[in-house]
């Protein structure tokens, strides 16, 4: 097992380390990976139960480093997930920590509060859950630590929970365990809002935050940070994922180390296709970028979204046959990634080069081009065009209709984007044929 480590030392250690602990959050156990279309040669086995594997990595890390305790800052499960096995798997991992003599302190997040399963689950005695009705402080006499925390009572908690957290107990190492959106984060519900100033005012030595899936350090002194989730689940959760290992010395100074736990990583592959004259030119560039990503993944399987942009002569060929080029890139990924690379999606966003873009065509083809240009500018016209496939829209599941990654066929900007492809597709279909003999 390889651990990628990036060291962020906030206050350098001057004294002997006293103890270590792990801060993790947003396990979202058994939450499926999203947006991966199955195709021949995709690494289908790599995504199976990825969140479970990541949790196993967390437990192994804790045991190997003999940490004093583990903090989980909420959201162990998905809210609407009733599979009891998921909970039992969590319990089995906690039992491993119990056998290694490592206690776990956790708070319920919005997802956990919504989940009925949580209530019935018999947690082992090394796991302590903070109550939902008011903040509670647990003191660990062995290492002079006080942990303050409060669980979510229901899915939607909009008041500032941290406000009621007690003041720091001087002489102890004070840790605040909080599930919060802080001052609000894009793509996250604004639950239990708080500010850095508010948190600092408590004079704690460390704030372990959960809820926001992206790692983020809000404050260096004292450390106030989101550890992010431990396994990315879709293309908006890119890059390495894991937890923070905190080393505390006898003067309460801390050293922070990111530890990557994810088994399957999400990455963007943005390729500039400017001046590519053919599709093969574009493929060469994609290959180069993909190779870099594979090299950086440290042996993990990857899901990559390929985004090709730029003005180029290859635009016509690319836009005319998006499916063909998607398949070409998938084949390329097979080659580059040795079966460990999953092309999540290919977005071809190229444009015509400036010298041809301005010219207007005459004749029948010109008529088509003009028609498409009109469609792009006339919302009513565009809406009418949407009627062409309304029969399909009503049958589509909500996942495809909602959210930033959805088709968005009701949204004009999405349709306009597609019209570019349609234009080139039409020209290609009408004019492409073998050259003169």
């Amino acid at each position, binding site marked *: 097992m390889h651990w990628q480590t990036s060291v962020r030392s906030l206050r350098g250690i001057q004294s002997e380390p006293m103890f270590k602990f792990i801060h993790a959050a947003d396990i979202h156990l*058994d939450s*499926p*990976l*999203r*947006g991966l*279309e*199955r195709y021949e040669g995709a690494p289908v086995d790599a*995504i*199976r*139960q990825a969140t479970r594997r990541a949790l196993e990595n967390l437990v192994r890390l804790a045991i190997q480093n003999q940490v004093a305790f583990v903090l989980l800052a909420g959201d162990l499960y998905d809210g609407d997930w*009733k*599979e*009891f*096995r*998921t909970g039992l*798997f969590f319990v089995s991992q906690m039992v491993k920590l119990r056998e290694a003599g490592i206690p776990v302190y956790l708070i319920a997040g919005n997802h956990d509060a919504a989940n*009925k399963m949580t209530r*019935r*689950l*018999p947690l082992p005695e090394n796991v302590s859950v903070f109550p939902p009705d008011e903040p509670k402080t647990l003191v660990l006499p062995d290492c002079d630590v006080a942990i303050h925390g409060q669980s979510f009572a229901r899915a939607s908690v909009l008041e500032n929970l941290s406000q009621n957290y007690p003041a720091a107990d001087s002489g102890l190492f004070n840790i605040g365990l909080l599930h919060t959106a802080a001052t609000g984060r894009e793509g996250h519900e604004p639950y239990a809002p708080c500010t850095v100033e508010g948190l600092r005012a408590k004079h704690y030595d460390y704030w372990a935050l959960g809820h926001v899936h992206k790692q983020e350090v809000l404050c260096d002194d004292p450390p106030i940070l989101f550890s992010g989730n431990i396994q990315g689940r879709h293309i908006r959760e890119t890059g390495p994922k894991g937890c923070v290992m905190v080393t505390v010395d006898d003067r309460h100074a801390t050293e922070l180390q990111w530890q990557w736990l994810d088994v399957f990583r999400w990455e963007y592959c943005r390729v500039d296709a400017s001046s590519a*004259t053919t599709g093969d030119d574009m493929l060469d560039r994609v290959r180069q970028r993909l190779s870099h990503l594979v090299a950086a993944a440290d042996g993990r399987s990857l899901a990559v979204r390929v985004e090709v942009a730029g003005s180029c002569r290859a635009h016509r060929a690319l836009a005319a046959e*998006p*499916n063909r080029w998607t398949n070409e890139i998938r084949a390329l990924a097979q080659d580059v990634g040795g079966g460990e690379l999953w092309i*999540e*999606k290919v977005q071809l966003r190229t444009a015509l080069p400036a*010298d041809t873009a301005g*010219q*207007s*065509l*005459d*004749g*029948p*083809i*010109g*008529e088509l081009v003009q*028609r*498409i240009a009109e*469609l792009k500018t006339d919302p009513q016209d565009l809406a009418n*065009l949407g009627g*062409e*496939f309304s029969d*399909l829209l009503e049958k*589509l599941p909500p996942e*495809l209709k909602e959210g930033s990654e959805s*088709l968005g*066929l009701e949204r004009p900007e999405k349709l306009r984007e*597609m*019209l570019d*492809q*349609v234009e080139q597709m*039409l*020209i290609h*279909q*009408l*004019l*492409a*044929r073998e*050259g*003169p*003999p």
Partner: protein
Amino acid sequence: MKILQLDLRAFGPFTGRSLDLSEGDAGLHVVYGPNEAGKSSALRAIEQMLFGIPARPSDDFIHSYKNLRVGARLSRASGPPLEFLRRKGTGNTLLEADNETPLPEDALRPLLGALDRELFRTMFGIDHQQLIQGGKEILHGSGNVGQLLFAAGAGIADLQTVLARLESEAEELFTRRAHTRKINQTLKALDTARKRARQSQLPGEEWAQHDEAFHAAKMQRDAVQQQLQHCQRDQSRLSRIRQAQPMLAKHRELLGQRQALGNVKILPADFPEQRRTAITDLEVARNDAQKARDELQRIQRQLESIAVPTALLARAAQIRELPDTLGSHRKAQRDLPGLRARRELLLQTAAEILRQIRPELSLEMVEPLRLTTLQRAAIADLGNRHAALVQNLEQSQQDIRDSREQLAAEHSQLAEIEAPRPAGPLKDAIRRVQSQGNLQQQAADVRAELARRQQQAAVELGRLPYWSGTLEELEKLRIPAIETIDRFEKELGEAEQQSKQLSDRLAELTDARADAERQLDESRREGEVPGEDDLAAARRLRDQGWQLVLESWRPAGDMPTASVGMAPDPANHERLAEFLAAFAPGLDLASAYAQAVARADQCADRLRREAGRVATRAGLLARRESLGRQIAAITQQADEARAAQIALEQAWQAPWLTVAIQPGRPREMRAWLQRHQSLLEEAAAIRVRCGEAQRLDDCMEAARAQLRDALAALAAPPADGGAHLAAMLDHCQAVVDRIEASHTQRQQLQKSIRQLVQRSSAAEGRAERAAAEIAQWRAQWALAIEPLGLPAETIPAAANQVVTQTAEMFARLAEIRDLDERIQAILSDAALFQRQVDELSAALAPDLAGQEVAAAAERLIALCNQAVTAQNEQQNLHKQEQRHQAALVKAQQTIDALAARLRTMCQEALCQRAEDLPEAERVSQTACRLDEQLAALEEQLLDLSGGAGIDALRAEAETINADELPATLEQWTRQIEQLESQRSQLDQTIGEERNTLATMLSGAEASEAAEEVQELLAELDTDVRQYVRLRMASAILRDGIERYRQKNEGPVLRRASELFQRLTLGSFERLSADCDDRGDKVLKGVRPGGGGAVDLAGMSEGTSDQLYLALRLASLESYLIGREPIPFIVDDVLVTFDDSRAVAALRALGELSRRTQIIFFTHHQHLVQLAGQTLDPGVLFVHAL
């Protein structure tokens, strides 16, 4: 834009070629090129000149990829013409005409506008294939005006196909109602996966239920287990007691017996043994004491009888030395005379020697003659060397003499050897002859084989049948080829075969006929069988009779006569007689007729009754007849076959007869031919051998000549016999050997002489050195022998002799000195011995005084020995006495100890006397045995008490009734069994629940289904996007077509209608566009003179092609209005037009060429001619490739 000049500088088959297309306003430029002239390359050149050379060009077969160049001079609406070259590459592909200066990549953009390669190719190019495709689309399409105009306007030949494809691809993805479309299927799969995810989720309740059941069962099991342990404990206790009861009884009994014995003194186990041993030992000790006392008395008596002389013993040491001294005294007295005689002899010998060497000296004066060891060695050494030096000198002188003699001898030998002659040429001649092998033997072999073969050939020839003559004649015969023989063999064989088959067949048939005859005979012998003929005859006879009867009845006319037998007319009478004759004589008509009827009936009856035989007979008759016919036919065939065979045989014999051979059968002749062939081969072989023999003779003669010449050159005698080559070779070889031998001998002699001369001079040198060495030796020698007083010339042998004798003399003198010393010593020893003996005798045995010294000494020795013996005996007796006294003391001590021991034992066993001890021992043993038995029992009982002690056990056992015990135990066993079964059931329940829980935990179906949902959603996303694109494309295309129609319908259709009328030579008057049932505008052709409108689908293929061309030309004309012209490239489109329609089309192109340049490529000369005849020279320009 117009192409003024096309530069095919390095492109396809062209090098430095250019086409001048500048003539005319725009002009119809017909470019004619027969096949292989490069028409296709020129076509591609125009496109690549304008839009670039592709990455994988097809025109680099002469000029390499890098060197491809195509250029043009183009006229522009504004400014001077643009001249440039295009090269292959990804950038900077435009160059100025100097082929160096780069032009900007977009230099052509003002001329081309938004036009790209594809659009140019479709809109401004037309080829034969496109024309046909366009015509087909018109024929098979709906005639939709919008689509026709759109397609012709853009130059698209397959618009309908594109439309259909867009729609069908969309439909393959999704239709509202279908279930088999891809998206529909995915939606369904999505539903299923969601359901599965939901259903396979393990609810917490279920798990909790089983978890609870598991724990409950575990607790229950623990309770049962506890109960079971309790029962088992009780059962065990009772069974112990049951076991202990008999043992307790036994214990009580033994205890009684032991108490009866009372207080017993327990003796050790070995007590009786100890007692018996003590008594025995006591008796032994008493015996020993008595024996010792007896011995002491006997020793005392012996001691008293012994006396010892002590004075003698006091000097015994001195006396014991006497015997030795006496021995040496006696020996010295014996030796003394001998020693004195020897001294005298030695003195005389020494004096003798001295006399020999130096008679002038006496023995007292010899000391100066004594030589040192060094001097002696020097004399010896010089003496030894002398002989070697002398011999050396003599040997050298001898060598000189020998060498000189040998030299003289060898010189004379050399003079005798013959003069050298060159043997080379003769050797060469011999080698050449030998290199040809043994010619003589070869010739003999060849001749022998020749003779053998000739003889063999003669024999073979004699044995060759059918022909006689010589071998040479045989060779000249023209014999038929083996193939001819094969053919005749085959044909004759077949003919014979056929004859044989025919004769076999004939025999078969004849047999069959005979068989049929025989069967007929047999049948006849069995009885005549009536045949159909017989029946017919009988009936005829009957009818005849009846006729006669009728006639006899009939009156004169046609009435029958009244009675029979009245015969009126003679003819009748004759017939009657004839009729009656068939019967026995004497019958009248009536009887005869009755018989005739009877016969016919009889015959018919028999025919019926014997139908089988009748049929057989009929069959046999028919068979005989058929066989007869077949025999005739086969006989004829056999005759023909025979004739053919004869002809064939004649044909076979004919070629042989011309060479006077009466041939046998072909097979024989094939064998003959083989023998003939082998004879021919033999003849050829004989000829070869003859030639070989002759050649060998020639070779031999040449060899002999060579050898003779070589011999003559050496002036050697020629060989005798002369003719025989082998003898001649031997002779020549002998000559060569001789020459070579004398040569070798001479060389050896010369070498030997050289060696002898060398040896002689070496020997002389040695002789000189030897003489010098001798002179030196002499000087040394004189010096060495000088101390001996010898003259210098004394030879070494003499000097040596003197040295030896001198040494001997000094040896004698030394020996004499030794002898003198010994005699002196003997005399002084004898005097000492006498004094000792005298002194001892005087002290110890005065009677010996005056006796001879040796006798006195011996007497003293004897006395001393006697005294010693007596002393020894006395000492021995004293020792025995001491030993017996010690034994006596020891025996007494033992006796005392044993008596004390027995007294102690009595005390221990509480007895007065030792005799009472055995009884005490018996009582003690009995008590011991009882104690042991009790201890063993108590041990067992203690075990059974389970640690509680024997008393407790006894108390417990007494509380339990022994009779009830088995029943109670049985009851416990049953209860234990019951509990065990209960426990086992609970174990099972626990196991089941544990398994259930484990199974619940192990599955991952729900999460996998959730993962599948996500995958399906992703797949759906892709497909929906594609579907949307296709549907949008389809809608936009239809929209575009309609809009284009609205804008262009009027002018384009008018012009197309006119062109179509001309291109079809008036076969159609015009085109019309009317709405169909659905309101779509549909194009139709209108026949002239009110002939009505014709659907496009009803037109001929040629007409539809012309319609497509009309629409294309009309669209192009319409497009060009108000726009920069673009050249129109036409590739051989008129090949399927007949001449008149081709002329019409050329005229239309000519008209178009006033608006834009037209470049018309063709392979067809007649089209060029047609154009020339049809078009104005100001319009048409012809170029040949």
